């Protein structure tokens, strides 16, 4: 007998399902084949086990996760207030030990911008939305087993984690790339270029060819900035744009899409007609206008992408939710007396989440690409060394110094590729309806 049986009956609204994933994992877990193949299975949950945490949550009690979330929000508010009131217009904010995971950066010079604040908030939200996975180890192990089958996706995950770490921690430690005309057009290490290309060769000149040095591992631009440093600063810009704007977008899209599908009637009509209007105005054009009006700062760019880019996702969520709405488990939940909000939250959203995850992971590379594109045509944030800007800067030197456009271009390409691999693997891992 399957011990997961209790989870399969979705109509048994809140008791058996402590989170979105539980009811979805059951379909593949209850195949005895998989179990016998893995005798050291750590899953020890029994039919009669009661998830007291979930019940506490339902009645509005204080769980450990809620407590941690409350503390984090409190600390965040305190730090934000400190930045606004005490530090004020002061360009440098030195952190006290009060900020949990930024303690290492306390002694360093870091002006926390509005974008940085949004970024920290995004990371907090992302962290807490992963809490159910940490609580339910069995489920996490299950997802990880499914995810692990995609080798490119696992590699992508490590690559993205590296990019993320370099972009967030690295930029705090490494100084901004500085202009140095004497070091212009240095080739990357192990490569060489005709000695007439750089004004002065930093490395040795062998047989009339200037060789790259470890001083500038990836070479330099026409005004002597190290491409490695530029690339690392570019990582931060890309991560901030992609993650913050996507979080804003999927939050709005999920709320709007499920509400429209579940409520129907004039609410649906009004919401979808609004999406129509928003969709007809391509994000790119809207940004051109607003960049023209307010100047293309990164903060404005992120807000515009986040607040205007959810139309497509909302439509996907709605069309999926329309189909889910007709399912038996939704009827069952409603008959058991679940409120609309609870049905949407526990049954509709979890069951359209594969579409949401697919859409979100497609959205991140799209935003990273859009930011690079806008910087490329000179409408992005001119003060930030983003990848697109560096590609544009090297465009004129392609014949002689090909590496200037190529290095950030490759980083951009690899990052977008990694997000796509990750998204595809997640879709396969999260979709309970297909067994591989």
């Amino acid at each position: 007998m399957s011990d997961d049986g209790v989870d399969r009956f979705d109509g048994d609204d809140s008791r058996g399902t402590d989170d979105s994933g539980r009811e979805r994992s059951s379909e593949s877990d209850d195949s005895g084949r998989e179990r016998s193949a893995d005798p050291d299975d750590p899953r020890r949950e029994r039919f009669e086990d009661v998830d007291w945490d979930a019940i506490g949550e339902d009645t509005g009690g204080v769980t450990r996760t809620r407590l941690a979330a409350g503390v984090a929000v409190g600390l965040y508010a305190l730090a934000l207030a400190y930045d606004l009131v005490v530090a004020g217009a002061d360009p440098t904010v030195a952190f006290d030990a009060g900020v949990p995971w930024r303690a290492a950066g306390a002694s360093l010079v870091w002006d926390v911008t509005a974008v940085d604040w949004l970024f920290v908030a995004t990371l907090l939200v992302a962290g807490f939305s992963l809490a159910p996975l940490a609580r339910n180890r069995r489920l996490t192990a299950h997802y990880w087993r499914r995810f692990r089958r995609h080798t490119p996706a696992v590699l992508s995950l490590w690559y993205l984690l590296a990019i993320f770490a370099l972009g967030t921690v690295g930029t705090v430690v490494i100084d901004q790339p500085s202009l140095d005309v004497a070091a212009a057009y240095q080739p990357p290490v192990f490569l060489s270029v005709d000695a007439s290309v750089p004004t002065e060769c930093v490395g040795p000149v062998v047989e009339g060819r200037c060789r790259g040095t470890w001083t500038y591992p990836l070479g330099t631009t026409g005004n002597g900035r190290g491409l490695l440093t530029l690339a690392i600063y570019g990582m931060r810009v890309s991560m901030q744009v992609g993650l913050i704007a996507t979080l804003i977008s999927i939050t709005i899209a999920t709320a709007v899409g499920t509400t429209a599908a579940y409520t129907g009637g004039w609410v649906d009509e009004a919401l979808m007609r609004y999406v129509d209007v928003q969709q007809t105005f391509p994000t790119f054009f809207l940004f051109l206008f607003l960049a023209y009006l307010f100047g293309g700062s990164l903060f404005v760019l992120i807000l515009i992408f986040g607040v205007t880019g959810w139309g497509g996702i909302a439509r996907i969520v709605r069309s999926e939710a329309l189909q889910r709405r007709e399912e038996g488990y939704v009827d069952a939940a409603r008959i058991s007396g679940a409120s609309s909000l609870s049905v949407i939250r526990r049954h509709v959203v979890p069951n359209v989440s594969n579409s949401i995850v697919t859409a979100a992971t497609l959205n991140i590379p799209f935003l990273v690409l859009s930011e690079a594109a806008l910087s490329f045509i000179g409408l992005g944030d001119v003060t930030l060394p983003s990848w697109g800007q560096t590609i544009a800067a090297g465009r004129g030197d392609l014949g002689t110094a090909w590496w200037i456009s190529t290095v950030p271009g490759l980083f951009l390409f690899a990052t977008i590729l990694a997000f796509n691999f990750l998204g595809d693997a997640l879709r396969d891992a999260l979709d309970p309806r297909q067994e591989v």
Partner: protein
Amino acid sequence: MKRYTARRIAWAGVVALLILTITFVLLELAPDSQLARVQFRAAASGESAEAAADAYARRRGLDGPLWERYLEYLANLASGDWGWSDTRSQPVAEAILTALPYSLMYTVPAVLVSTTLGIAIGLYSAFNQYTKADYAATFVAFFGVSIPNFWFGIVLLLLFAVYLGWVPVLFDAELARTRTFSLANARQLALPVFVLATSAIASTMRYARAEALEYVRAAFVKTARAKGAHEWRVLTRHVLRPTLVPLSTILVGDLLGVVLSASYLVEVVFGIPGLGRLSLEAIRRQDTALVLGTTLVPVFVAVIGNLLQDLAYAVLDPRIEYGDRR
């Protein structure tokens, strides 16, 4: 169905008007660099900056109240007078009509190729999931969607034009205008079409595969097979049809977005004097009338696209009723 269609068309008109209004207001709020220049010149030569500004506004017809100018603008628009482009010294409609063919020359082939191939490959991949062909298709899709098209364009241009010399480095607008359907023109358009198609095909293919996968193992597909339907019939009638419903959403929104925004980059990289470059130039030089004009074209395309998509939705999925629900 008739009432539904009429309502959707009426709504499309409302949307178009709304967007025109928003655009008008946004541009009204924009700082006018030319006005600042006029004022600076007047102040530098010892005249009143205010008087100069008034004269400038009168000359450009900006002195009336906002709503009056707005109504006048809409009336002009309806009568085909889209304003005068200061930076190009020609009517806006004329500037757009000159630029539009250049954009269509590479976007139309790119969209046709990418939509057909994208859906076909996506369906094939879904039917042959986890085979070598599926992996190959996935790889192509990932490559296409991941490569930044402006960077790809630069790399291709360097490779095929500078080093190999197979295609011209500079786009010859004169050639494109006089001999549109010649081999020489096809050669210079090959790279832009290729770059645009690779980015558009990838998203179509990915979505088509993902959506089709939902139906490949569905009960009704099994039933159809059990009843002896041919693979081809299963593919077209039982999988393609339900796949097209969500896909139509994506195709209109996503593809339109990809093509419209990509046209800016592709035209900048390849030096094609099309709509994207015209619009970008207008924004840079703050030519209000031209900015508004060049936005109207993609907006109209998008409004009509959305209308067609809504109608396709109702036709393709009988579960979605076209009346008011409940």
